[in-house]
């Protein structure tokens, strides 16, 4: 399976998070998955400015060129997209959200009704299924995890794809790999 991991850890001194993802990626590779990891904090990813140029000027591509283009390309050509982030004030990191906001070139501007809700039809035939890995912060509780998971599950509807797991870095990487092997 082709897997893209978006490492949304803004702080390289958070080595616990980094080594968790490294362990996960190594184990996935040993199970013959192909893993491409983007360390977002080291990339040039601008904020989406809401111009809709990617819909009405250069359809499918952001008009403000930055490193997010290579991420979008990998996403579209993958089977599983993993969002990974420490929880920061109750949500995934701002640097991960920057990439998230820059994913609207992947859908069309038009509206359709999908499963009883308005969404934008896909620009591509299919999108990877999505998973979420969170590192709790000191005051993270179950409600926080549920809220973040629900928001990401909702976002999978925007790409008419499946949300397949939400896991914590406090659990073993083997559990995530088992989950992925079962997809």
């Amino acid at each position, binding site marked *: 399976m082709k897997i893209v991991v978006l490492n949304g850890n803004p702080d390289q001194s958070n080595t616990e998070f980094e080594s968790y993802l490294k362990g996960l990626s190594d184990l996935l590779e040993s199970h013959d998955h192909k893993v491409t990891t983007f360390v977002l904090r080291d990339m040039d990813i601008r*904020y*989406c*400015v*809401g*111009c*809709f140029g990617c*819909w*009405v*000027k*250069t*359809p*499918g*591509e952001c008009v403000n060129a930055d490193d997010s283009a290579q991420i*979008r*390309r990998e996403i*579209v*050509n993958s089977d599983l997209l993993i969002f990974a982030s420490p929880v*920061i*004030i*109750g*949500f995934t*990191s*701002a*640097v991960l*959200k*920057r990439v*998230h*906001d820059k*994913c*609207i070139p992947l859908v*069309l*501007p*038009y*509206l*359709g*009704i999908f499963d*009883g*809700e*308005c*969404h934008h039809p896909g*620009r*591509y035939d299919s999108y990877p299924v999505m998973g979420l890995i969170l590192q709790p912060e000191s*005051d993270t509780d179950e*409600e*926080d995890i549920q*809220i*973040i998971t*629900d*928001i990401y599950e*909702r*976002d999978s509807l*925007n790409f008419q794809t499946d949300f397949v797991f939400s896991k914590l870095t406090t659990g073993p990487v083997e559990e995530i790999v088992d989950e992925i092997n079962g997809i």
Partner: protein
Amino acid sequence: MRLTVFNGSPRGTGSNTGILLGQFLKGYTGTEGNSYELIYLNRVDRQDEFVETFRNAETVLLAFPLYADAMPAIVKTFIESLAPLRGRGGNPSIGFIVQSGFPEPVHTRCLERYLQKLAKRLGCPWFGTAVRGGVEGIQAMPPERTRRLFESFYSLGKDFGATGRFDPQIIDSLARRDSYPADGRSKGITTAQLKGSDMYWDNLLRKNGAYENRYARPYTDNPE
């Protein structure tokens, strides 16, 4: 009342969020003695100033468009910069306005839970969250199509200016909760409404000479 308004739209001064805030503030200033300060969060290089403004604020209104079912990244950056104020006594009371392009309130439901929890986490008394869908394109609409929308935000501001809270009835009517089933889904959206939205985008595509290319798939059609 002294209100500090953070406009969290990446479009800043030209934003739909700003237009709705304009109506809200017109109502808000109808009560004598009310004043406000308006801050644009898209000036991302001014994060330190934003935090100081928040620290000294009495009442805060954070307004933004829904991006990918959550807050725009500039708003998350702002929220993260407030971390040092967590647990400090005397944080301002806070309320939120979230507007979306999608018409139904269901898209914003999960984020509403996040925002209420955020207020609690920061130790800010929460005075409400107003949600409104179907806002994209309002700048291209004739006045008769935006009149009721603008009146609703004016009423929300006027009532808030007098009471210091968001009136639950105005909140419900703004979200048009009665137009949707209890789960907030899109029953009642007509094919004609969808067509209207499609035409809006097609016009913009034609204006930019990009219509023929509207279904482009740059990441699969053009290998690297």
